[in-house]
């Protein structure tokens, strides 16, 4: 059991060996036990397989009839889950790889996200679509993408991307409790990581703030989801080089307001914006735009995936995704 939300400034209580994956599984276990309206559906989610990334493992056995293995039909999975949500249930749909969410784009954007508003608030759509995303496992061009940027700025749709510095289970519970559809992005490489306590702010989708080095931060990092895996070591290296930094790591990445975090961190003179996906019109573009629009922005550099397909060859994938080195280099370039 994990608390459902975190208040401002709370250091959330985890860290006792619970992994990112287990936090999610536990949250679904709790949800299924506590709320008869909750159900899970997705490809191969039943035991003993427990889903391609094993996040639903153990659940179908404990909650028979409420964990549903679907056909390979992403549009129908999201569409049917939308109907279940309209009908008063609390479906959590799993898309096996985030890359496949593209088959359900219409159901998500032209249906689930629109209903509440276009039907004049006569319905709500408490739908959660979980999507394991990102690269780093040499799965090649169609199984490694970070496509969540294409779902930003969709009226009616929230996009939430936990890290192990948040409480992923609590975020999932918040998403299930949300009256609006939530696309819930889980970076594959985070699954095995143990949760770490961190300073978090805001509810129900808290933003984590990490500070490293001594004194006023010279650089502010903005990242989400899998980006955390480069930012934390980069901050350590920067601290060693005598450069203090602050990382802002929101869990909800749609409609994220960047400027206030920069302001409240003391307006560091430089900002490095990190995103695993490609740069064009992505999350970091939105962050940079907000900083720029507010006037007197810091100097800014984006660190993103290269503008090409994600190659299968592991070493090429490593070379084209962001890295700790790239984050450090960007920070140094701005600070010096």
């Amino acid at each position: 059991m994990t608390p459902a939300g975190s208040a401002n400034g709370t250091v959330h209580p985890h860290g006792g060996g619970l992994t990112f994956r287990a936090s999610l599984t536990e949250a679904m276990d709790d949800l299924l036990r506590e709320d008869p309206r909750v159900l899970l559906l997705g490809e191969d989610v039943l035991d003993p397989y427990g889903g391609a990334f094993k996040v639903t493992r153990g659940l179908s056995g404990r909650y028979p009839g409420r964990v549903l293995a679907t056909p390979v039909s992403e549009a129908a999975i999201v569409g049917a889950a939308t109907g279940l949500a309209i009908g008063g249930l609390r479906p959590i749909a799993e898309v096996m790889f985030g890359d496949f969410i593209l088959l359900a784009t219409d159901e998500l954007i032209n249906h689930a996200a629109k209903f509440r508003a276009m039907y004049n608030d006569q319905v709500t759509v408490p739908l959660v679509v979980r999507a394991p995303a990102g690269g780093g496992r040499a799965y090649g061009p169609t199984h490694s993408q970070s496509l969540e940027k294409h779902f930003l700025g969709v009226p009616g749709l929230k996009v939430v991307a936990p890290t192990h510095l948040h409480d992923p289970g609590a975020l999932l519970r918040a998403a299930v409790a949300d009256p609006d559809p939530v696309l819930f992005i889980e970076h594959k490489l985070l699954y095995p990581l143990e949760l770490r306590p961190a300073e978090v702010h805001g509810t129900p989708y808290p933003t984590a703030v990490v500070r490293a080095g001594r004194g006023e931060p010279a650089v502010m990092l903005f990242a989400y989801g899998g980006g955390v895996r480069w930012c934390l070591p980069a901050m350590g290296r920067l601290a060693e080089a005598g450069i203090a930094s602050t990382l802002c790591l929101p869990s909800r990445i749609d409609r994220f307001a960047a400027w206030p975090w920069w302001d409240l961190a003391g307006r560091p003179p430089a900002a490095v914006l990190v995103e695993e996906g490609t740069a064009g019109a992505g999350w970091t573009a939105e962050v940079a735009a907000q900083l720029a629009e507010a006037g007197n922005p810091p100097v800014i550099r984006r660190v993103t995936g290269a503008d090409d397909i994600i190659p299968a060859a592991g070493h090429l994938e490593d070379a084209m995704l962001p890295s700790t080195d790239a984050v450090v280099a960007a920070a140094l370039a701005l600070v010096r």
Partner: protein
Amino acid sequence: MAQADEALAVELYTQMALIRRVEETLQALFRQGRMRGTTHVSIGQEACAAGVVGAMDRQRDFVFSTHRCHGHFLAWGGEPRALFAELFGRQTGVCGGLGGSQHLCWNGFFSNGIQAGMAPVAVGLALSRKAAGEGIGVAFLGDGTFGEGALYESLNLAALWGAPLLFVVEDNGYAQSTPRRMQHAGRLAGRPPAFGVETVVHDAADPITIRRLAEALTLAVRADCRPRCLYLHTYRLAAHSLSEDYRDTEEIERWRRADPLAAMRRRLPDEQADTIDREIAARVADAVAAAEADPPARPRAVPLPEPVALPSLASAGGEPA
């Protein structure tokens, strides 16, 4: 005619005549520039709406409709005034003027302007009703909509999971300007059965038969929670939307002579039909007048979703990482 059949004939004729009158009025309102945008009328297909929807239970069932939804909406009991108001862009519209002609929602009635996109949603809602222990749904489809893959995913899922849902196909032979034979290979009515959905094919001339079929099929769906399909051959007498109609005029004429509404009217005593017509005319005229005079639609109060609230970081402590 038996007593019951007589009553049913009156009900169906009234329903169909109301739909016809409302949609002819809509055509006129657009022609006169009193409405903006576009619309799709179901003139000629009213027997499907009246026949099928009347077999449903408004207390617990639901209806998924399409871009061509006014008839289904009215047959479900939707108010003409709310429909007119919706298309006039008025606060009192079915969806406060936000949805417009294709995007209606009211009391378990849903339509959307994306072909076949609602099919899986209907399956999901049907499953939720099954879980709740009561209620079934109907999902209307056109023949052109058989082009969309989402429909087949939905037929499969409905049959596989036992969704209490009646798919109703209104095959009017065309998708927009394109005839069925240029859109589909094989026999359309043979497709739902290939996904485990039993299908009854009928022509849609007689609303009484449609009603009986719909009653039989909904009974079956209620009994075993398995989906069924009612495949109706029909024809639209008007253009696809407000644009020109390029179909063969002789073809249209032939169908106009077999207009199910006219046929239904002939079953009633002239005087009774005249009375019904007069009442409907008055009701529709009143609805238009009231709707047009209603206040303009307002923007939604709450933008969706709201941005994340700004926390007060000032009070926050923090440890170095």
